[in-house]
């Protein structure tokens, strides 16, 4: 089977140590088997990684991978994944961003890029169609992400150039550093910005002018025209354009799952002061969308008066508003916007930094760290000045910020007593959905290949909707289904929101993919490939030393019942969790230690992975 479209079948290789680039032509088999995006990314990481890889060493690679549907005429075709070994967790990590950046890479003629090595001085990569150069970025040292993007464009002299960049945090190898593109869109999780920083790569600028290959453009257009129409008719469509993900604040608070005061509680009295209506009525000055997306879920907001007046930022969305709102006790939307702006400009993930800052507030409140540990600044819930200052300190690695910049494991190493306060899985701070009332959410976090991130599985709404009467088997299946369908979107290079939020039929994606490649695919076939990639990232993690004991939700979920709100008094039951984990492994085709069995790997076409898993089983 040879695809007639969907792919250029070209990967750009960049070796920063050697200052060399070359183009690899990939086989049809590789292209179709791993689909693209994080599927390709995971496979390339598997192939290039060493067992003793140092995530911040020159040997680690980072793969930039939009997908075969990125850039095509279909709803929300603008996602790009960055895949690597994460410096935050030490295992497989990836993160994606929407917007125009990945589309431009595809228009330059590449389906993906692999970056390895380390440049002798701070550099940026300039991809002008086929012309690829590594150039000095010394001039942009310590410059903020938004400013760098703007400055680079101006220096190149073309407003249409797309730029992905890191801020000072990335340069300082802060383990929660992001990669930022399109004025504040972030690949935030797992410290991908630190990986670029370790390579001395400040930015990647791209100008692409090529046609994207599509096998059957008339059919693709026909299916897409219908898809756009359908989305526009949805009764929440217009609401989505207006509030985007900020509408989730009300939902999360009403459902009792909003992170509050470092996840001690799951209900915030002042949620109404930081919700979508507040944003829409008082701050919003414009809409913003990813490439080819009708939903335009991003909001451009402006602080109009007070001490943060003049702050303009594309954002926040739910996660940021919750992590820098309820979770640190801030009920002032001005301050949330400011925190969002600072994180974007410094290049720091809002979920991870919001989480660790809240840990420090709780720790200080409970007398578990001293004033000296905090450089003499007494921390309080809702103290925006101190919180803004901490963001800066993390990015610049100053004082206590230097420890926080080393992520969960850095904090635990210095203050072991804080371990029970940190909500994380495998070193990745938990996203802004509490898991104490939903065992599926806890299982999703616990078994996610990158750590406690909601984008791999978000079964919580379904579980709340279904109520109590369904079996652990059904619940495990729901998590597995999520972990299969959601990564598929990252593999195709599109956004999942039209599917989740506007009830868009996932079968349509098989139609898009078939029209793009010219080969008939069903959704089932695509899901099988997605499942194989999940097993592959599992194998990467097992190769790096992960085992069953690491598949556990944050301790707080068992130990500290929710205090207020609709689910006050609830916590998860540890034995029940172990039971569902057994069921989950069994249904996944993994053994009792969480290692994929040989049969499972064979079924997934991952024969070459078997040997490594055998070694692990033998205890090597």
């Amino acid at each position, binding site marked *: 089977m040879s695809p007639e479209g969907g792919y250029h079948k070209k990967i750009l290789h960049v070796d920063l140590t050697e200052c060399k680039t070359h183009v690899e032509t990939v086989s049809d088999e590789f292209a179709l088997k791993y689909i693209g995006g994080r599927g390709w990314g995971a496979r390339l990481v598997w192939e290039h990684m060493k067992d003793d890889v140092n995530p911040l060493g020159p040997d680690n690679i980072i793969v930039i991978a939009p997908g075969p549907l990125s850039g095509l005429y279909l709803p929300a075709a603008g996602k790009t994944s960055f895949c690597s070994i994460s410096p935050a967790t030490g295992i497989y990590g990836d993160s994606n961003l929407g917007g125009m950046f990945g589309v431009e890479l595809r228009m330059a003629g590449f389906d993906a890029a692999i970056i390895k090595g380390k440049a002798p001085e701070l550099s940026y990569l300039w991809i002008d169609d086929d012309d690829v150069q590594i150039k000095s970025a010394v001039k942009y040292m310590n410059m903020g992400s938004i400013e760098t993007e703007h400055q680079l464009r101006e220096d190149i002299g073309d407003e249409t150039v797309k730029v992905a960049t890191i801020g000072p945090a990335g340069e300082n190898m802060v383990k929660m550093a992001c990669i930022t593109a399109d004025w504040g869109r972030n690949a935030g999780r797992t410290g991908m910005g630190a990986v670029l920083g370790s390579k001395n790569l400040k930015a990647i600028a791209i100008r692409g002018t090529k046609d994207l290959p*599509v096998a059957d453009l008339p059919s693709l257009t026909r299916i897409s025209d219908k898809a*756009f129409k359908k989305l526009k008719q949805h009764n929440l469509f217009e609401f989505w354009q207006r509030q985007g993900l900020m*509408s989730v604040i009300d939902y999360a608070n009403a459902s009792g799952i909003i992170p509050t005061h470092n996840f001690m509680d799951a209900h915030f009295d002042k949620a109404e002061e930081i919700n979508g209506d507040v944003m829409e*009525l008082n701050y919003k000055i414009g809409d913003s969308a990813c490439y080819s997306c009708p939903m335009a879920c991003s909001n451009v907001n402006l602080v109009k008066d007070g001490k943060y007046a003049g702050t303009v930022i594309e954002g926040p969305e739910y996660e940021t508003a919750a992590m820098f709102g309820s979770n640190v006790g801030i009920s002032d939307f001005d301050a949330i916007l400011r925190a969002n702006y600072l994180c974007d400009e410094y290049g720091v993930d809002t979920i991870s930094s919001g989480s660790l800052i809240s840990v420090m507030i709780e720790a200080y409140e409970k007398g578990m760290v001293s004033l000296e540990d905090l450089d003499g600044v007494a921390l309080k819930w809702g103290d925006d000045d101190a919180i803004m200052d901490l963001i800066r300190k993390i990015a610049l690695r100053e004082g206590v910020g230097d420890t926080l910049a080393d992520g969960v494991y850095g904090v635990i190493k210095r203050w072991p007593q804080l371990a029970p306060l940190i909500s994380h899985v495998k070193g990745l701070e938990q996203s802004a959905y509490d898991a104490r009332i939903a065992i599926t959410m806890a299982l999703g976090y616990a078994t996610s290949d990158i750590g406690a991130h909601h984008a791999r599985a978000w079964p919580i709404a379904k579980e709340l909707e279904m109520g109590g009467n369904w079996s652990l088997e059904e619940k495990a299946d729901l998590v597995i289904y999520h972990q299969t369908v959601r990564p598929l979107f990252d593999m195709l290079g599109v956004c999942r929101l039209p599917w989740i939020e506007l009830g868009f039929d996932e079968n349509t994606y098989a139609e898009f993919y078939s029209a793009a490649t010219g080969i008939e695919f069903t959704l089932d076939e695509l899901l099988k490939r997605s499942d194989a990639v999940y097993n592959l990232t599992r194998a990467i993690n097992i190769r790096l030393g992960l085992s069953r004991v690491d598949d556990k939700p944050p301790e707080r979920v068992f130990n500290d019942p929710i205090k207020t709100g609709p689910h006050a008094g609830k916590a998860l039951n540890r034995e029940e969790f172990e039971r569902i984990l057994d069921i989950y492994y069994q249904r996944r085709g993994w053994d009792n230690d969480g290692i994929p069995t040989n049969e499972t790997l064979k079924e997934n076409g991952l024969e070459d992975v078997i040997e490594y898993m055998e070694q692990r089983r033998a205890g090597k």
Partner: protein
Amino acid sequence: MRKKLTVIPERCSGCRVCELVCAISHTGVNNPKKANIRVISLYPHPVIKMPIVCEQCKKPKCRDACPTDAIVKNDGVVTILEDRCVSCHACVNACPIGAIFVHEDIEIPFKCDMCGGKPKCAESCPKKAILYVPEHTQGQAHRLGAALKYANMQEVEYYEHGVKKKLRYAEIETGGTRGDSE
């Protein structure tokens, strides 16, 4: 009654659906850089998104600039005649709003032809930022907008690197219903 394309930049989200549908229907390839409409996004403070589309001027500067008379106006549409065009790009430089485009793969400059009276961009824009309206109402939206803006214009003062700056913005339409979702 003659109709014209008009844009409301305040509504534009920068999604580029307009560019995509234009390019696909005119050139048969998936490449927004071959579109007859272009959305300019300017990033510094604050974001500006501005779709640029040919105004089909009554007295087209592009036509006046053309040394080979390759540009003509028929039925309200300014057209570049391929066989007469020598690709000197005089029109590209002459258009006051930059509505004529070039691309390496395409020999002659290209511009909006109004899709024979059913402009795809206006039909597809998910934000209703591009309108296809009778000529006499053109400007109405802007007039209304200008009046509203005048009434609702606000100013904020702020400091950037210690320097006092001013930013003007217009209050936009708002409203509020609820929905639940991730």
